[in-house]
């Protein structure tokens, strides 16, 4: 077998192993779906009663933001799982085998796409119950879900670097929340950004979370001409801007993660 075929088959073996774990420890999936459901309900019924978005039902406005926030939070699982594997010595076992060097990371991030699919489905169903509707074409809706998965995949690689650097699952969660909370709140996730203080507004306008949220809203048809996005390039071209971020993140963090994997395992 060529090394390329080996890399693919090793990646698949590790993906399967990680998916089995998701199945065997359903708590993980339960908790990663319960909190976004809670977010939908809290924001839809508590904040939603006070926030009005011109031309769009707040619950429809909200869902794009919740989708993006959820996949970002879900990506911490990538880091926590890698830290756990390191801690338990399983990475040592893998590294003593003549398997492809990339398989552990490829298999991890691939399995987490599976995790995200389940979470997104549960979230979409909750949204439908709470009054969210997709008002675009089937193709656009599919594009919306694909963009979410792609963005989540890129963030997974960031979290992989974090997980391999801190090596303790609990710390992965705590450390990443410090970054994730401001990142997902200084954006158009839950409220329109027009009335933000100037500095925060600029951050929000250029925040990839905002662009991804805006793109997802547009692809699901949850926007209205009466409420156009702020007149800045990232939010007027949100799909392109979000995809650019995905590419940049992958270009930077895939090599970083591979390097960190080698270093972490060789300690």
């Amino acid at each position, binding site marked *: *077998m060529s090394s390329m075929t*080996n890399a693919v*088959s*090793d990646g698949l*073996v590790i993906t*399967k*192993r990680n998916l*089995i*774990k998701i199945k*065997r*420890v359903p*708590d993980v999936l339960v908790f990663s779906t319960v909190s976004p459901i809670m977010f939908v309900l809290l924001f839809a019924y508590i904040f939603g009663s006070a926030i009005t978005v011109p031309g769009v039902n707040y619950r429809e406005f909200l869902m794009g933001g919740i989708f993006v926030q959820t996949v970002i939070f879900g990506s911490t699982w990538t880091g926590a799982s890698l830290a*756990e594997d*390191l*801690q*338990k*010595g*399983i990475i*040592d*076992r*893998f*590294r*003593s*085998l*003549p*398997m492809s060097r990339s*398989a552990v990371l490829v298999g991890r991030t691939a399995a987490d796409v599976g995790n995200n699919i389940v979470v997104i489905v549960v979230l979409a169903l909750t949204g439908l119950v709470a009054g969210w509707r997709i008002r675009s074409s089937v193709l656009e809706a599919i594009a919306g879900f694909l963009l979410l998965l792609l963005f989540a995949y890129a963030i997974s690689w960031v979290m992989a670097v974090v997980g391999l650097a801190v*090596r*303790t*699952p*609990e710390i992965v969660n705590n450390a990443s929340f410090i970054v994730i909370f401001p990142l997902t709140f200084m954006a158009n996730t839950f409220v329109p950004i027009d009335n933000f203080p100037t500095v925060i507004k600029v951050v929000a306008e250029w925040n990839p979370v905002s662009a991804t949220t805006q793109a997802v809203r547009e692809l699901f048809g949850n926007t209205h001409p009466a409420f156009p996005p702020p007149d800045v390039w990232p939010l007027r071209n949100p799909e392109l801007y979000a995809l650019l971020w995905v590419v940049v993140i992958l270009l930077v963090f895939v090599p970083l993660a591979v390097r960190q994997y080698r270093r972490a*395992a*060789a*300690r």
Partner: protein
Amino acid sequence: MVLAEGLVKTYGEIRALGGLDLAVPEGSVLGMLGPNGAGKTTCVRVLTTLLPPDSGRAEVAGIDVLRHPQRVREMIGLSGQYAAVDEYLSGFENLDMVGRLYHLGRSAARARARELLGQFRLEDAANRTVKTYSGGMRRRLDLAAALVARPQVLFLDEPTTGLDPRGRTEMWSVLAELVAAGTTVLLTTQYLEEADRLANSIVVVDHGRVIAQGTSDELKAQVGGEVVEVVVAEAHDLPGAERVLTAVGEAAATRDDVARRVRVSVNGRRPGAGVLVDALRRLDDEGVSVLDVAVRRPTLDDVFLRLTGHVAEEHPADGDASRDGATGRGRGGRKTMEEVAR
């Protein structure tokens, strides 16, 4: 088959390996004996390609470990001091996965997994998740995982540490079979009895260096030969016993007043049993009443004490660091993870 020359590895201030040399001939079992923190695990990690040394050279099956790590990995099996098996997978799934990662192919990996589960008496637990296994079962599975690709060289890093006596005895019988089958093995252990039982030759390691080597008998001979030991019934018998043993032995007898015990070294000239018979006759003549007698051969504990000046215990100063942060991934770490999983 396994060769290490001048391996050095430091972690900050701590020297885990201080120029370690060793050789394991093909088909033999080398026992690497030392307390926690002596550098045993670091040495195994270097030889199994997990850790690059700061300097030195290592070869496994004639292949340079640093230059061709991937080729070395095809030849070796590693069983760590904590069971590195996936507890969310079943025993079968674990072995099947390892087989696939050795590129045995789908059906060959499955067949090999079943074969090993049988060989290690795990058939009944084959489809249960490893979480439900006892410590001994996990270790056996871990060992089975190391054997999946029928490695030419097997590295066993403290295979029985943390096992209860029953688990240890089970593991020893499994290992004895492997050793009898002629696999080349490097075995690290802090149990002197284990090295004595399983290894053809032994290296004693302390502070990252080999401080003695030889067969178990050779090492014991370094310490001195047999010891004749007498326990007397009454304290007032002690001086008489001491006098008699000094007369029959080769050095002054030593006396332990609390245990009412007198011992003397009978190094070599006459067999210990003969000396004992002689001693008993004389003790009887002296009217010393004897409770217990023995001819004791030195244990590897004595060897260790003699060589290092301290008994085989943990080095509190460098124990953790030179085990490559094993505390983080070892038993302590695992407990935290189980809590998280709950």
